[in-house]
C-alpha cells in the first residue's frame, strides 16, 4: 500500500519502512522553532523540570522575537530577555533579534531553514505554514518544545490525510487567501481536525511561493495537524539561493490512501471575506460591501510578505486613507521591510496616511500596535477572527486579502478593489 507525503516524512523520521494513520510514533525532528511567548516556558520546563543542560542541536533551532516585541510593556520585556538569554546560553544558531528577523513564519522560509521532506515543529499554531515547502510542519506546545530541545525527538499520531484538488485558475482579484477561506468555509473550523491537508492541482501550479504559504498557513484554521504541497519548479526556484541544508523532496504514491478527496473549481471561488466571529464564516464580497470600518490592518504571517505589500501599494498609490479610518501596515519580516523600502512601497503607504510599523505579530493577536476597542470594526489580512482575537471580545473582525483591505481603507467601508484600481498590474497580480 502506498503512502501520502505526510506518511512518508513521518515514516522516515521514525525509522520505519511505513506508517499508517493512527500509528503513534516517536520521530526525529529536523528543525524546531520557538518565540518570545513560548521559549520562556519551554526553556524553564526543559532546564528546571526535565533536567536537560543543553539543546540537542543548536544548528536546528530558530528563535524569533516577534509576538510582543519590541516589548509592549515591562512584563513582555522580561519575556524578551528570558528568550534572549536562553538562546544565547544554549548557542541557538538561528536567533533573530528585534529589528533583524520578524514573524517566525516568514523568517524561517525566507532564510531557507525549513526544507522539503523535513519534519518541522514550532511552538506556534501557524507553524503549519512551512508545509508549502513540501515538508511536514506542525504547531506544538511549550512542553512539547522542551522535549524536542532536550531530545531532538517527539511523539506524534500519524494523521489521516484529506486531499484537496484545485482545478482551473483563480479569477481576477481572487487570491490564495480567498481560496483557503473558501475551503474553510466549506469544511468548517474543525473540518480537518487533527488531519493532514494535502493541497494539489492546476490552480496551485500558477501561484507563487508566497501565495502558497498563505494556503498552508491557514491549515490550523480548519483544525488540521499540517498542510502540505507538492514539490515543483516554484519550490526549487524559491529555495535555490536560500536552502541552508541539502534536502530530499517527497511525493505521494499513486496508490496512497486518503480519508477523503475534495474537488474544488478554483475559477468558481468568489472574492469575499470571512465575517465575524469565525474563520469559516466566508461570504462573497457583495454581501458585506459598504460595511463601515474603524481600522484596516495589513499584517501577519498570513498576508504581509512582499507580494502582499505590492498588491496593497498598487491599490493605495495616489489615494488617501478615508477620514475616520486608520490603516496599519506591519511587514511580516525585516527582509520584507527592506525590500518594500527598495521598491518605494513604504513611500506610497506613508503618503496615503498609513501607519507603517516594524515587523511583528502585533495587532493580529491583539498584542499591541492596533488592538481593537469595544464595538470597533476591523478588516484584517490576518488568520483568525474569533471573539477577542484582536482585542475587545465585542470587536468585529473581517478577514480579507490585501487588495480588498487596501481598497477598503481608501473608502472607509468594505470595497471591491476594482472600485479603486482598474486592474492589478501584470507581475503583481
Amino acid at each position: 500500500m502506498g503512502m501520502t507525503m505526510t506518511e512518508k516524512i513521518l515514516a522516515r523520521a521514525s525509522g520505519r519502512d511505513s506508517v499508517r494513520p493512527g500509528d503513534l510514533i516517536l520521530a526525529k525532528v529536523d528543525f524546531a522553532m520557538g518565540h518570545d511567548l513560548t521559549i520562556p516556558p519551554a526553556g524553564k520546563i526543559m532546564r528546571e523540570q526535565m533536567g536537560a543542560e543543553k539543546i540537542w542541536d543548536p544548528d536546528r533551532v530558530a528563535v524569533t522575537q516577534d509576538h510582543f516585541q519590541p516589548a509592549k510593556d515591562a512584563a513582555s520585556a522580561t519575556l524578551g530577555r528570558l528568550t534572549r538569554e536562553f538562546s544565547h546560553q544554549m548557542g541557538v544558531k538561528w536567533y533573530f533579534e528585534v529589528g533583524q528577523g520578524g514573524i517566525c513564519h516568514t523568517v524561517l522560509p525566507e532564510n531557507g531553514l525549513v526544507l522539503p521532506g523535513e519534519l518541522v515543529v514550532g511552538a506556534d499554531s501557524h507553524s503549519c505554514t512551512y508545509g508549502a515547502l513540501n515538508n511536514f510542519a506542525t504547531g506544538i506546545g511549550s512542553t512539547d518544545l522542551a522535549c524536542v530541545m532536550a531530545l531532538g525527538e517527539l511523539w506524534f499520531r500519524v494523521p489521516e490525510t484529506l486531499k484537496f484538488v484545485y482545478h482551473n485558475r483563480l479569477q481576477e482579484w481572487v487570491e490564495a487567501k480567498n481560496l483557503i477561506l473558501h475551503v474553510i468555509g466549506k469544511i468548517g473550523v474543525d473540518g480537518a481536525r487533527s488531519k493532514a491537508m494535502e493541497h494539489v492541482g492546476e490552480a496551485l501550479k500558477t501561484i507563487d511561493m508566497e501565495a502558497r504559504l498563505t494556503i498552508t498557513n491557514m491549515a490550523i484554521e480548519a483544525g488540521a495537524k499540517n498542510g502540505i504541497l507538492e514539490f515543483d519548479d516554484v519550490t526549487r526556484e524559491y529555495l535555490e539561493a536560500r536552502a541552508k541544508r541539502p534536502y530530499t523532496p517527497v511525493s505521494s504514491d499513486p496508490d496512497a490512501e486518503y480519508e477523503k478527496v475534495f474537488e474544488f473549481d478554483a475559477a468558481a471561488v468568489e472574492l469575499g471575506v470571512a465575517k465575524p466571529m469565525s474563520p469559516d464564516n466566508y461570504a462573497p464580497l457583495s454581501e458585506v460591501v459598504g460595511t463601515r470600518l474603524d481600522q484596516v490592518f495589513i499584517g501577519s504571517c498570513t498576508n504581509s510578505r512582499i507580494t502582499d505589500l505590492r498588491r496593497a501599494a498598487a491599490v493605495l498609490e495616489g489615494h488617501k486613507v478615508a477620514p475616520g479610518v486608520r490603516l496599519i501596515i506591519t511587514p511580516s519580516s525585516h527582509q520584507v521591510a527592506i525590500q518594500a523600502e527598495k521598491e518605494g512601497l513604504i513611500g506610497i503607504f506613508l503618503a496615503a496616511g498609513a501607519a507603517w510599523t516594524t515587523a511583528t505579530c502585533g495587532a493580529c493577536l491583539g498584542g499591541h500596535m492596533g488592538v481593537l476597542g469595544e464595538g470597533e470594526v476591523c478588516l484584517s489580512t490576518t488568520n483568525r477572527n474569533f471573539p477577542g482575537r484582536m482585542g475587545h471580545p465585542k470587536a468585529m473582525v473581517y478577514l480579507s486579502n490585501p487588495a480588498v483591505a487596501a481598497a477598503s481603507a481608501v473608502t472607509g467601508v468594505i470595497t471591491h478593489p476594482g472600485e479603486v484600481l482598474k486592474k492589478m498590474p501584470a507581475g503583481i497580480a
Partner: protein
Amino acid sequence: MTLPKVVRGRAWKFGANIDTDQIIPAKYAIYSLDEKELGKHAMEGVPGREGWAAQVSPGDILVAASNFGCGSSREIAPVAIRGAGISLVIADSYARIFFRNAINMGYPILQSPQGAEAIDEGDELEVDLEQGVIRNFTKGDEYRSEAFPKFMNELLHMGGLVPWVRKRLEERRVAAGR
C-alpha cells in the same frame, strides 16, 4: 504528579469551538510563567463569562462541546484552566494542540460526546479517571468516555511528558557511560 483516581466537582458548561483566545486572551500571555495569575483570567474571553474564574470552586469540572481549545498553540490555555482550580475537562472533542498540551502536562481530560451533550451547568459529577466513567449525581446518569491510545494514556498517568523525558535522558546518559 500522577493522576487522582476519582475527581468530584460541579460542572461548568461551555459551547462548541471555544478557541484559545477565549480561554485565555493573548494579553495575559505576559503571565506565561505564573499559573495563578493566568487562572484568574481563564475563560474571560468567552462572551458572557467575564469574571468566571472567581466563581470556580477548586475541583470543579469544565464541560464543553466540540473542538474545544482550537486556535493558538498556547499551552497557557490548559495551564490557565488548571490555575483556575478546574480539576478535569470533559469535551465532545478537542482541537489537537490543546489535547496534546493537556496530555503533555499530565492534566486530565476526557473525551465524551455523551457526557458533553447530557451534562448541564451545575450538575454534580464524579469521574473515575481509571475507568473513564462519568457519574452525574444530579441527573442520576452515567456516561462513558472514549479510551485514548495506550501511549497517551501512559503519558497522562505518569504525569506527562516531563517524567518521560527525564527517563529518556537518563537512559541516554547510561548508554553514553556517564
